[in-house]
């Protein structure tokens, strides 16, 4: 029986996301014993997680309160820390997975005894080591992206070499709660006069990104749905005062006829399994609903710093708020699309970007279906996704490129390709100079410093926020991950990576060719073979 430890010291979203990996690991290796080490603050979420033999908790809050306060001796923090780690330090593991990829885990993983270390770790020289190219991607490429082109869960499952599927039994549904929830929701559906009423859950919990759904948005939705025979609405609360106030205000507007459900973590899966769609900002309830494959409509602020939604299940919606007054219409449109209904819409032409999660042969992605569009950004998203999937061994996404060619204005596509080509050209020039400089090193080691200068310049091009830069950052990660002891082996490894980079940039060039119809351009080679 293999003993597996998963270190998960990220956000609550990371914690919930890891549930799929845990289930996948158990499905692939039924005899494995899985243990998880995480923050004590996530203890409340653990009752609903399947397949974990034991949880270990680090009381981060107490440890840090002691460390930060000059009143208290650091000794107590160290004692607490030691106590929290004891269950894992003394064990010999078959595999330890650094799931959330934080610095704390990267040091901790190196302190543990294990046959295999998965993900990032910090070696004895203080250098970050990645277990495979997906881990390098996570550290050097994904960490710099504002909008993830490959979902974190997808990348992390690949780091752990476990496929990301949706058919695993991930969440524990408590049978007693399930029975009660089933009965209650049957009654709710019957209240509308039909046992087949569509139940919409409006989650009053704020988002982790600070986004708060305006009460008027919910009020408008409720008004629309109350007039419809097909729908029943429930308000979902998790015990906070502000939610109660919001529910009270909504009830005032709707004659105290609204149904509110106060859910704790253990009851949540039972409730969610009876809801047809949940409308929510980005929080734990939405993340769990997404994992359970409940339809979600995720609401986010268009001004938010990061544009990576929680929703990753096929068919889910994400709406970014530019204009508050359009939000209810956007939500209603999504419901109409989802259920084939004809709920009335106030604003058909919204400025709020609406995305839908779509599944293809490669995984899931988000496609914009409505609202103000930044076409260059959308093109970059789809092409960067396909590019990296191809780099990591997936087949070329020819159908995507065809689709883009057919459905994008030619001048927009030409502008995108020209811009990309110009970035590529300047980067390739630096790459070729670096390769020439490397030849000099093979002749004489005295040329090493000059070569390092060229290499640094090449790596510097990865500091921009462009598709080509992402490729350079992957290269940088591979260079950092070289683990040889002598100069000749290092140089050989760098050379191999430089040629791999060249090949990768060629793939990008080929993608540009696929996107354009011009035969002359398809024959043009940016990179001259040496």
């Amino acid at each position: 029986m293999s003993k597996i430890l998963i270190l998960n010291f990220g956000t609550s979203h990371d914690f919930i996301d890891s549930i799929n990996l845990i289930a996948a690991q158990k499905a692939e290796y039924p005899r494995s014993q899985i243990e998880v080490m995480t923050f004590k603050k996530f203890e409340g979420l653990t009752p609903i997680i399947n397949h974990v033999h034991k949880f270990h908790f680090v009381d981060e809050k107490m440890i840090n309160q002691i460390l930060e306060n000059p009143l208290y001796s650091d000794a107590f923090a160290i004692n607490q820390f030691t106590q929290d780690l004891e269950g894992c330090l003394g064990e010999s593991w078959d595999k330890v997975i650094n799931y959330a990829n934080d610095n704390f885990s990267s040091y901790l993983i190196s302190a543990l005894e294990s046959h295999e270390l998965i993900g990032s770790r910090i070696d004895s020289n203080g250098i970050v080591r990645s277990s495979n190219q997906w881990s390098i991607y996570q550290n050097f490429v994904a960490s710099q992206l504002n909008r993830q082109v490959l979902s974190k869960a997808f990348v992390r499952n690949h780091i752990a070499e476990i496929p990301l599927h949706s058919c695993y039994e991930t969440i524990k549904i408590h049978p007693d709660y399930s029975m009660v929830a089933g009965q209650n929701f049957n009654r709710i559906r019957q209240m509308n006069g039909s046992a087949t009423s569509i139940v919409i859950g409006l989650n009053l919990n704020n988002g982790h990104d600070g986004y708060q759904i305006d009460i008027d948005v919910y009020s408008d939705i409720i008004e629309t749905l109350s007039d419809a025979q097909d729908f029943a609405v429930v308000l979902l609360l998790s015990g906070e005062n502000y939610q109660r106030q919001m529910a009270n205000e909504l009830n005032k507007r709707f004659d105290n006829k609204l149904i509110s459900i106060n859910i704790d973590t253990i009851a949540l899966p039972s409730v969610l399994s009876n809801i047809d769609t949940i409308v929510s900002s980005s929080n734990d309830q939405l993340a769990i609903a997404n994992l359970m494959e409940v339809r979600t409509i995720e609401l986010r602020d268009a001004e938010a710093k990061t544009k990576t939604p929680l929703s990753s299940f096929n068919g889910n919606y994400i709406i970014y708020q530019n204009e508050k007054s359009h939000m209810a219409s956007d939500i209603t449109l999504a419901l109409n699309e989802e259920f084939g209904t004809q709920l009335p819409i106030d604003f058909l032409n919204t400025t709020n970007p609406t995305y839908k999660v779509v599944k293809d042969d490669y995984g899931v992605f988000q496609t914009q279906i409505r609202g103000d569009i930044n076409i260059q950004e959308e093109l970059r998203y789809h092409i960067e996704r396909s590019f990296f999937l191809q780099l990591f061994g997936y087949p070329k996404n020819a159908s995507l490129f065809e689709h883009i060619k057919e459905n994008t204005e030619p001048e927009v596509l030409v502008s995108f390709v020209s811009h990309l080509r110009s970035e590529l050209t300047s980067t390739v020039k630096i790459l070729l100079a670096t390769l020439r400089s490397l030849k000099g090193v093979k002749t004489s080691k005295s040329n090493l410093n000059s070569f390092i200068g060229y290499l640094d310049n090449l790596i510097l091009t990865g500091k921009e926020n462009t598709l080509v830069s992402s490729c350079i950052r992957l290269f940088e990660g591979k260079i950092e991950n070289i683990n040889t002891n002598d100069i000749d082996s290092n140089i050989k490894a760098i050379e191999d990576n430089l040629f791999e980079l060249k090949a990768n940039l060629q793939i990008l060039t080929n993608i540009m060719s696929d996107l354009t119809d011009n035969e002359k351009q398809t024959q043009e080679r940016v990179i001259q073979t040496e």
Partner: protein
Amino acid sequence: MDERNSQYELQPSRNGLTVPIINGVYLHSIYNPAKEAEAFANSQEKNLKYKNKVLILGLGFGYHIEEIAKKLNSMHSNYEIIILEPNKRLVEDFIAARDFEDKNIKIICKDKVKQLFENLEFIEFLMSKPCIIKHDTSFILEKEFFSQFLSYQAPQNTIQYKSLLSERSKELFDNFGAFTFKQNVQNILSHGKIESQGQYLIMALSELNKSYKKGISNE
């Protein structure tokens, strides 16, 4: 001779309640300690409304504490009171004469401030950010002790706090030098090599602290 209690007596007040008089200081009103205690508790009402944990500096003979407890009981479903009193004789006399029936009240009697901060339970209580209330006459009497308590800073040097480390912590962090925790981290970084499990754990703990501080500053 015990300087703290060079003059020590217990006198009955006008209404029969015991009042300690130590070195000429009356710890309560000699006329009506109960009424004085009630007024004292009323003056603290605003503070007690938002806090159900209270640290009281000075036992006196307990009258003010019982009034505080009554107030807390009326405002909160549960509460906790810890009293700091360095005068052992006073504590013994109090327990012998009256003691608290209320199980939510606890007396800590240490004559050195350092000893208070070696107790993890007391530290956990302080970390809950209790309301701190001075019993004025007790504070005047034991000004040095209570002032030291209020301005206390824990020793940061690992040699100084080694006695507080658990056996397992000592085992893991055996190569701590006589430095602060942060200095130990700096030493590892400047050495450029991580050479033991203990050093990996020190670095991990340092990162845990950094990310916690970052999280707080983002709130």
